[in-house]
């Protein structure tokens, strides 16, 4: 037994050496990535990783970039910021990548920022938190809309419908916490008063207690839920169970078909702020994003036989921004690539139209969000 354990150990050691040593193909362009492909944020990280792999393979099949192969070096941080920090160090110091795309969550992204800033390597984050790009950090960019934008878009819609008193139910995950903070900040700008501020845990399986409280609070006109994963789906079901008839808003954290599948009939009439990807087929032909979205959706769904999600689209935009910038810079020189990303203008992406500037490292405006309503198990564009 002991002997076999030793052989196993030896094999592992051999594996280790081959895994740890920098890849041999030195002439390839190395793009590093760390995503939460497993763990609580895996349903964000998983499509992100798949998208990166899909399009890098495509790129290579078409002859690569600047005449070189592109190599994706990816590590799974499982949503753990400390793991992410070590993997970023590994990407920077050991794998010597030219650019990093990754950070599924704001927490993992924040852990990476000091390292990329010090290493002076461009970094495109796929996480939502506004703190990532506000204040602007020289080497850090991001592709998803911020949580502040999500809050603003929803508040805008509420204001339009004349709601002034709402209840907020947010998740105690990083996503929900930051979303709550931004909502509390943005609401007064739209003259909206948050009369009840409740939370639920990311692993909670029952939110009827919080919803009962909301139901019994006088004067609430609408409810805004800020969370991702299964939580919002359970909230939606509990909402229907309690027979609450107030309008229910959800954030872009639920922007995938699986939310409708999970919540079932209870999702009828739910309003969300989301990217146009969810309504690709219904988009008017003259919508600027139409072609991009149709192609991405087709590519992804053919390759993985699974419905496309807006999270994968963040990775698509991240990769395209990087590719365009490397092409424009004509090299992988980090500072040239960084400048090129910062100069991105009019890039039509899967999330929105991106116009970066030294003051804006995301480059999206509120048009990147649409208000959708769930009707009969599908998404309908409201505005």
């Amino acid at each position, binding site marked *: 037994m002991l002997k076999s354990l030793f052989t196993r150990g030896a094999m592992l050691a051999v594996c280790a050496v081959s895994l740890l040593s920098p890849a041999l193909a030195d002439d390839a362009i190395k793009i590093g990535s760390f995503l939460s492909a497993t763990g609580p944020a*895996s349903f964000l990280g998983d499509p992100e990783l798949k998208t990166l792999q899909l399009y890098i393979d495509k790129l290579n099949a078409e002859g690569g970039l600047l005449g070189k192969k592109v190599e994706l070096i990816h590590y799974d941080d499982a949503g753990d910021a400390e793991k992410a920090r070590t993997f970023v160090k590994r990407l920077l110091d050991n794998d010597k990548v030219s650019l990093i795309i990754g950070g599924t969550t704001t927490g993992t992204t924040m852990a990476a920022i000091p390292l990329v800033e010090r290493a002076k390597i461009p970094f495109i984050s796929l996480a939502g938190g506004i703190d990532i790009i506000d204040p602007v950090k020289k080497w850090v960019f991001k592709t998803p809309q911020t949580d502040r934008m999500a809050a603003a878009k929803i508040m805008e819609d509420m204001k339009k419908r004349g709601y002034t008193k709402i209840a907020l139910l947010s998740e105690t995950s990083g996503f929900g916490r930051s979303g709550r903070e931004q909502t509390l900040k943005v609401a007064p700008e739209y003259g909206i008063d948050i009369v009840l501020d*409740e939370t639920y*845990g990311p692993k909670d*399986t029952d939110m*009827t*207690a919080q919803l*009962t409280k909301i139901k019994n609070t006088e004067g609430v006109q609408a409810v805004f839920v800020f969370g991702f994963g*299964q939580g919002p789906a359970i909230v939606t079901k509990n909402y*229907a169970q309690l*027979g609450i008839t107030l309008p229910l808003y959800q954030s872009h954290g639920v922007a995938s078909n699986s939310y409708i599948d999970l919540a079932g009939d209870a999702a009828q009439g739910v309003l969300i702020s989301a990217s146009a990807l969810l309504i690709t087929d219904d988009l008017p032909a003259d919508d600027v994003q139409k072609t991009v979205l149709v192609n991405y959706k087709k590519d992804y769904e053919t390759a993985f036989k699974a419905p496309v999600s807006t999270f994968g689209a963040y990775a698509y935009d991240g990769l395209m921004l990087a590719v365009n910038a490397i092409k424009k810079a004509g090299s992988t020189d980090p500072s040239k690539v960084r400048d090129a990303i910062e100069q991105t203008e009019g890039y039509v992406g899967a999330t929105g139209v991106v116009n970066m500037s030294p003051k804006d490292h995301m480059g999206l405006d509120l048009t990147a969000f649409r208000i959708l309503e769930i009707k009969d198990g599908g998404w309908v564009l409201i505005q």
Partner: protein
Amino acid sequence: MGAGRPLLVITAGCSGIMFAEFLQYLFSGMTIGATYALVGLGFAIIYNASHVINFAQGEFVMIGGMATVFLIHIGLPLPVAILGAVALAVVTGLALEKLAVEPARNADVVTLIIITIGASIFLRGLAQVLWGKEFFALPAFSGNDPIHLGGATLLPQSLWVLGITLAIVVALAWFFKYTLIGKAILATACNADAAKMMGINTQFILFISFGLSALLGAVAGIIVAPITLTSYDVGIMLGLKGFVAAVLGGLGSAVGAIVGGLLLGIIEAMAAGYISSDYKDAVPFVIILLILFFLPSGLFGARGTERV
């Protein structure tokens, strides 16, 4: 008189809402608490047979829910899928005992804890590879139209959860009281050495208890999946809560585990409703610390003096 009436109506309405609110918290708490109770019972059964805490208990819950979803997905009708899932969980439980716990029977308590933690990581990883990382919903057994009761609402599925939990408790009580194996398990729990001398195969008892608690876990996982959804990693939290329930009740006490589970669920719901939804997860732990400080062996745990 005319001025008094509306006031009366308001107060009555107010207390009516308060009562309905309380009832709602109670329903939610009991539904989720029943799940904790079943998982806690699984902990108690294995603990009784071997003084092992099986930290992979939550994974049985996951296997129950996920396997049912998967079997329905490949086209089996719900009842068959449920049976299949329970069978899979039981086989996993038995294999876990045979392959992982039995070879290390004489190891330290902490070592066994870590072995079962290793097993739970392994099972979770396997589920993730086999069944994916998404969340799934099981269809409710009998629709989603809420039942209204005293101003509060209850899903038909909650009745299933409470009913099945009750049925299991009754069945277990019968099993322990009237079947040979049941009695043997009790005897082993009471005094393993004496049981061994009486000709009871304690090794076999441990084997059976793993199967039994896997069954309980799987059933819990299936009956709550329509309400709470399921995914490859639901076992972590449910396992932890089940352990809390088992300790709250006094480890090794079946009644304790049931009461502990229900209590835990109700405390959580009440804490979320009346205290703070931010701290509702901390409340059960504060309570359990206080209980352990004053009743070092839980609510129903055996109290006695160690013989030296």
